[in-house]
């Protein structure tokens, strides 16, 4: 009898111990109302340096959540990693720093779960457009918290490209034939669509991410005409930096990160947002559906969006915070950096940036399911580059 009783006690203790990690964050339908005790670990899929030790060390010391990183090279790799091991992060990963071209794929694929933004104190300070953007908020449910963003700019060599370009037409015209580069990414179709939206209004493009079949075909055709003008499609930021440095390319689409790196290496480059506007990426820390350490994940989302940390991360990576309160902290680290990264711009500036979102069949502007999904975009992109 005694032995049996002891076994029962042991089982109860084990069961209780298993329940404790889940106690703070209620698993299931209801959103958690407070952040519980940290689980001691946090597994993230991230862009390199998104949990840079220069600001993550302090978090680890404060919360006891030890960060384990898995760097992804592309949005596709992030989605693939989240879907490995049965999806939802495979019961292994807690957070993913998904860009807008991956976030809706993760939401509709059921790989991420809604979060309670009231547990993220800095969320109320965000620029209004980053509180519930279409790329991470569906039907009022937030599937993560915005963290940083950057525009896709037109980078050019100031010695070779004169006068300075003011239109995206520069990368679709013969002037710089053989010395142009654009990213190797299906979302690049949106850049072509944005250009067509402004130059060929009769196509009726309302949103560069919501294209009907004829609109996608028109964008594909423009990209096919562009292909013989290209030096290459770049696959990583370092690729593009090297090509600008050695003179293989003189103009192309890229990110502020590349421009900053090139300027730091004294290369004669500048960047601009042409008059058609630009596309942009905005990254979201999203919570995996089967996250094993949800409390640490919430703690990280709360920590990384505070103004001080936002400022640090922006300057480590070369991007712009979503929290405007980060401005003075940026200037404190690097004089004038708040303005250099456009954080002090009015809302009208942000209206010229069309943020990446995964193309899905539902068209908001057409109120129908007639838009082309990301699979169709991928096939069109293979059609162009293959």
């Amino acid at each position, binding site marked *: 009898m005694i032995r049996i009783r002891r076994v029962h006690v042991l089982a109860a203790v084990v069961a209780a111990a298993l329940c404790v990690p889940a106690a703070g964050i209620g698993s299931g339908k209801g959103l958690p109302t407070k952040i519980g005790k940290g689980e001691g670990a946090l597994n993230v899929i991230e862009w390199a340096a998104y949990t840079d030790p220069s600001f993550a060390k302090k978090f680890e010391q404060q919360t006891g959540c030890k960060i384990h990183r898995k760097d992804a090279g*592309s*949005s*596709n*790799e992030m*989605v*693939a990693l989240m*879907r490995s091991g049965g999806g939802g992060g495979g019961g292994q990963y807690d957070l993913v720093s998904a860009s807008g071209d991956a976030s809706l*794929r993760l939401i*509709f*694929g*059921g790989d991420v779960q809604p979060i309670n933004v009231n547990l993220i104190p800095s969320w109320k300070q965000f620029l209004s457009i980053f509180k519930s953007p279409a790329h991470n908020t569906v039907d009022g449910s937030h599937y993560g918290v915005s963290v940083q963003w950057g525009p896709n700019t037109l980078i050019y060599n100031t010695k070779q490209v004169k006068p300075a370009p003011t239109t995206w037409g520069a990368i679709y015209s013969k002037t710089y034939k*053989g010395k142009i580069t654009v990213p190797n990414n*299906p979302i690049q179709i949106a850049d072509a669509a944005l250009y067509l939206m402004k130059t060929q209004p009769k196509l009726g493009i309302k949103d560069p991410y919501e294209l009907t079949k004829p609109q996608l075909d028109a964008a594909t055709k423009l990209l096919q005409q562009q*292909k*013989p003008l*290209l*030096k*290459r*499609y770049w*696959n990583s930021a370092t690729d593009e930096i*090297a090509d600008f440095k*050695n*003179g*293989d390319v003189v103009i192309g689409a890229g990110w502020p990160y590349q421009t900053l790196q090139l300027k730091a290496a004294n290369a004669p480059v500048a960047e601009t947002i042409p008059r058609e506007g630009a596309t942009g990426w905005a990254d979201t820390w999203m919570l995996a559906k089967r996250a094993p350490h949800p409390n640490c994940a919430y703690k990280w989302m709360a920590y990384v969006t505070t103004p001080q940390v936002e400022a640090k991360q922006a300057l480590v990576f070369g991007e712009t915070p979503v929290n405007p309160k980060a401005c003075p902290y940026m200037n404190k680290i690097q004089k004038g950096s708040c303005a250099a990264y456009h954080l002090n711009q009015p809302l009208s500036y942000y209206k010229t940036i069309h943020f990446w979102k995964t193309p*899905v*069949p539902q068209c908001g502007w057409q109120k129908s399911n007639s838009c082309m*999904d*990301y*699979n*169709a975009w*991928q*096939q069109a*992109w*293979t*059609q162009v*580059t*293959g």
Partner: protein
Amino acid sequence: MAVDVPALAGPPGRRARLRLSALLWRRPWLKALGLLSPPLAAFLLVYVGALVVLFISSFWTVDSFTGKIVHHWTLSNYRQIFDTSQPYLRIAGRTVGIAAAVTVTDAVLAFPLGYFMARFARPRVRTLLFVMVLLPLWSSYLVRIYAWRTILAHDGAINWALNGLGLPDQNIAYTNWAMWIVFSYVWLPFMVLPVYAALERIPDSYLEASADMGARNIRTLRSIILPLALPGIVAGSIFTFSLTLGDFITPLLVGGPSSSFIGNVVYDFIGINANIPFAAAFAVIPVMVMAVYLLIARRLGAFEAL
């Protein structure tokens, strides 16, 4: 029984071992089964099993909304690949074409080198040549590709040399030519070794006999050396061809705007919408190409030269 009794004496552990060894001696098939079953199981489960799963999943599709795989039999993936308005046949053709060009290039380069090593070089020179052929394999494949990028770049070694000779710049970087050069370079050792082995096996007496019968060098090369070296060349070509066929890193790093390989498309489709069925269907193409290639190689006697 009388024979068994002394053998079964002694401590129980030793007795069991002796009984087992006697059993294996009496039943040779048990011995064979014991030796072969671990590698055979690994081969069937890991290798053939993976290929079968690949083949089966190529007949499924993906739900474009959720990205989940739909287990519904269809030929639509293959129909799309063989549709000539789609880019996939062009990509497959490019992959096979460059793999073939690389194989021919490596054979042409490896034959004289292997011949010199096998028939003329003294042992010390031969060892030195071996080291030089194998030395690049000690460094990472990626490092060597990046090295080629700097050689081929706009301001790289090639254009520097051309300018020094008063010749105009060449734009080799990021073209299919660049891929051809880099592939030929990285896979060359895999051709040199089997070609050398095949040439070394030709007995000197054959060549003497050929000369005795009045054949000149060209005739000896054509009628004696080449036919006997052919299995080695074909064996080497299996490596160079299959390695090029399956590569996707070189096209990413040195390829131009039209340099996608089968591997690149497979990689992209798995990442996007996790369209594994389509990727599987496209991956079946190189498997088929290699199957045909290996059948031809067997007829040419390549497997005796491996």
